[in-house]
């Protein structure tokens, strides 16, 4: 059984083929990393999976369900959540409000016009749980625009968690996070392992090899290898195309 299936997905921007016949199967509970050089098409692939971008051809299945034609907002309701490489939150809302809105999206109607939403304990409590899982609960009342870059990355994760996903598409959650912060964040992600199917795009190889069950390598829109981290690391084609010196150091 697979939780997310991608078949022969393509996408072109003009003459540029950014996603080139990508087929992948994601197993429930696995962390599946997708790595590849800058401009390989990783973010584009995530956008196609989440529904932000329309695919030129191919299919995306969540479980058995074909979601290829569904818009992003409908796919979230089927358990497909994403985070953004470039932080995309509601800057004027507090961290808690950002997350509570994601909770609200899955809990009851939003066509309620009279009751004060900030008093809804059920929303705030669930939001706080998601913030805690992302390690940001101590900053719940801070306006998003006043949060640091590292905290923004955590807020992205908390918002995605609050949508009650079964599949998490994380686009470089560690982008721009370094040192201890990155280690702590990896530990956070480690705790989530098994509860969701996680598609992890990441440049930080330490994080990838610490977290991933399987790794796929995307180069010029094509998947050139899929396998365990060890197998991929020693794949000569991958090393030639992408890992290069970096892998040399690790091996």
């Amino acid at each position, binding site marked *: 059984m697979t939780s997310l299936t991608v078949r022969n997905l393509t996408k072109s921007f003009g003459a540029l083929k950014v996603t080139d016949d990508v087929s992948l199967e994601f197993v429930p509970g696995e962390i599946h990393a997708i790595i590849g050089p800058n401009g390989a098409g990783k973010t584009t692939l995530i956008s196609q999976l989440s529904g932000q971008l329309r695919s030129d051809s191919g299919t995306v299945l969540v479980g058995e369900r074909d979601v290829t034609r569904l818009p992003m*907002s409908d796919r979230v309701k089927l358990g497909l959540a994403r985070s*953004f490489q470039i932080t995309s939150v509601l800057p004027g809302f507090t961290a808690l*409000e950002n997350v509570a809105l994601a909770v609200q999206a899955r809990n009851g109607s939003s066509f309620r016009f009279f009751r*004060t939403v900030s008093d809804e304990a059920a929303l705030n409590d669930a939001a706080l749980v998601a913030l805690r899982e992302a390690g940001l609960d101590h900053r719940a009342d801070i306006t998003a625009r006043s949060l640091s870059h590292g905290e923004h990355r955590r807020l992205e994760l908390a918002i995605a968690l609050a949508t009650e996903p079964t599949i998490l598409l994380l686009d470089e959650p560690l982008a721009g996070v370094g040192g201890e912060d990155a280690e702590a964040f990896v530990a956070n992600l480690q705790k989530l392992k098994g509860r969701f199917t996680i598609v992890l795009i990441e440049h930080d190889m330490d994080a990838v090899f610490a977290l991933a069950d399987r790794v796929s390598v995307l180069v010029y829109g094509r998947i050139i290898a899929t396998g365990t981290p060890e197998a991929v690391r020693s794949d000569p084609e991958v090393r030639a195309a992408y890992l290069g010196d970096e892998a040399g150091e690790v091996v």
Partner: protein
Amino acid sequence: MSDATAAPVSTARRPLAGRLKAALVLFAIFALMPPLAAVLNDPFYVLIGTRILAYAIAAMALDLILGYGAMVSFGHAAYLGFGAYAVAILSRHGVNDLILQILFAAGISAAFAFVTGAISLRTKGVYFIMITLAFGQMAFFFFISLSAYGGDDGVALAQRSTVLGMDLLKSDFGQYYVTLALLVGLFLLCHRIVGSRFGRVLTGIRENPTRMEAIGFSPFRYQLTAFIISGCITSVAGVVLANQAQFVSPAFMSWHRSGELIVMVVLGGVGTLAGPIAGAVAALMLEEWLGALSKHWKLFFGVFLVLMVLFSPRGITGLLEQLGLARKRQ
């Protein structure tokens, strides 16, 4: 950064409380205005005051979508017209009840807002402004061609509306206080909406529509609903204006009026509800005052607006904040 103490969770409600307080101060001043005018022996102010309160309703309703939903409607005067013509049309058929007239106005407005909003919301930014303007002009020309109601010249009203059989609007004082009651009631309605689940979604869409889609909201239906609510509330202002002037004409819905409504919102401070109410007061008083001083008053008003935008981009609300009289938003 990590040493922040784990404060008890209370979401940012302070802007809400500030909005309520500012509005209550304004309403208190409005309530005291007629006795003051009586003391000053200038009852004319009560009639002007009614007009100001009506525009305050309209500006506040526009703020609901402009300030909270980032939808700059340049055709909102159409709803003033629907309100005004609802009075003219119903009273011709013997229906003088204010409540029925408001319901009729709101019904027409909801239908018009539903159709034009659904089309306009396919566009964004400057295109949205232009297309709402175009729909507003369509409504304007429709009423110009409505010869049964005087066409271009409009039509005088034989009497003011009644409320459940009572002649509450007969005196200028009564009319003023009924209008004030409408303003207060509709403000409380908008205030609730803005603080509700729906209001949070609307504000979220203003802040970042892509993020909203990524958590499962499709912006269109929420924006359209807000657009309809705003149109309906604006039409109440039109009902009042028809009574105040005892006259209805397409001039109520010219694009100048739509522009004036935007000016009131911006002048007062977008996304504050109470601000645009103050903006309506300021804009109309300046109009009276400058109009009496010089027939080139629009020029002076323009200069004033430019200065305002230069020195207080967030309008009167921003000015009060700078003076320390209102709480700053984060």
